[in-house]
């Protein structure tokens, strides 16, 4: 297991070139505002631009804020705090990926 901060780099280095460049849009919801804030910081530290926004009504949630980001996989959320759900943004709406 690599150190936390190296995990993202691992994916970039080892995945094939085609996969690395396919950025997908994700939305992550949280049980707490702190979860959203700290995860945003963590993602930004890893070079992933993540934006806080009000949770889309279609998803609803407890804390009111969600994190919208683009990446080639939701794996960058591995150490997120208080995470509730992760959705991939598709043309049809939101597809749930991880439901706890």
């Amino acid at each position, binding site marked *: *297991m*690599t150190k936390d901060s190296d*995990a993202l780099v*691992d*994916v970039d280095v*080892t*995945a*094939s070139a085609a*996969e690395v460049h396919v950025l*997908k*849009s994700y939305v992550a919801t949280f*049980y*707490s*505002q*702190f*979860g959203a*804030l*700290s995860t945003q910081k963590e993602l930004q530290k890893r070079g992933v631009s993540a934006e*806080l*926004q*009000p949770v*889309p*009504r*279609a998803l*609803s949630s*407890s*804390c*009111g*804020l969600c994190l919208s980001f683009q990446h*080639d*996989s*939701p*794996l960058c*959320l*591995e*150490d*997120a*705090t*208080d*995470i*509730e759900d*992760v959705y*991939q*943004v*598709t*043309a049809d*709406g939101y597809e749930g*990926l*991880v439901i*706890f």
Partner: protein
Amino acid sequence: MKNNIDKKNQKQNLYQLIALLVTGALIAVLAILLTALGNPGNMGFCAACFLRDIAGAIGLHGNPLVQYARPEILGVVLGVFAVALVRREFKAQGGSAPLTRFILGFTMMIGALIFLGCPLRMLLRIAGGDLNAIVGLFGFVAGILLGLFFIKRGFSLGRKYNQKAVEGVHLPAASLVLLWIVVFVPSLLLFSAEGPGSMHAPLLAALVAGIAAGVASFVSRFCIVGAFRDSFLLKKVTPTLMGVVALLVVALVGNLVLGNFQLGFAGQPVAHTEAIWNFLGLALVGLSAVLVSGCPMRQLVLAGGGSSDATITIAGMLAGAAIAHNFGIAASPAGVTTTGAVGFGFALLVTLVIAVVYTFMLAKNRVIAKEEVAAVGEKKGLCAQDD
């Protein structure tokens, strides 16, 4: 495809904004109508005051001036419950530090009864020209900023869990029972003969207004604390804050048209002029509400939608109202008593201790495991996995 997604998002955001503006305007109109129909001045709608009145009606406190089973509250809970069922959005969830939420509901009520109103009534008071409520607004914002100070440093009451449906049905069921008692055996309840508790709109009008306000708030997720909190966090005016502004503007215009607007500090309905307490009272409401994620009105809406955490918070508010009136902590138009000052001091201290403990002294839950994400990601073919 990205363009399509953006367009769809824009459309959804627009609908959301419209829903929030309509909700704000609707609550303002309902509040003004309810005042015209008999509710106390600048108190067409107030989640904290009305819960306090309900606490009085069922004998939890003995202040004869504020006892009335407010149908507005019952309407909010039952309306939300019904619409949540119809929209298949009813979710029984809870288990996020329930007893801490009880205490925070308690302290939120103490703050509201020192100011004399919840954030919703603060807006209605401002719209009525009550400048004491502007002082309160500064306190409210200060409380929210203090809450955000803790949230940014790690405050979290922990995750909630899915529960058996019955956990989410308790408050709607209790509301239905209380409504039944109000209609068929009102002699069981206490009714104020004078004071704010004696002033009320007709039962049916109040009930329907409560249902309408609850349904609109549920569908739009209207929340006064959330509006300020998210605007500060995102550093921009959120749609929810625009909904709050809509409420303020419509109530202001309504009051001007009906001649209810009376600018000044002194002689405002159900209000006192002690600036420090107006500030501190709503500061405690803002702080407690940020910590439990939602103002008193929002707690009612969440509870109707199945949140047992919100139900516990409301139980805490009822207990807070009972203690506040039984021990003379609640303010009156005459101002805040010495007992009130001491009681408030304790409530503020307890809230700060909770904030500090949950921010700095507890390990954070890191609930997502790398392996779980990887497994799901692989199954969906979403990511290349190497380790």
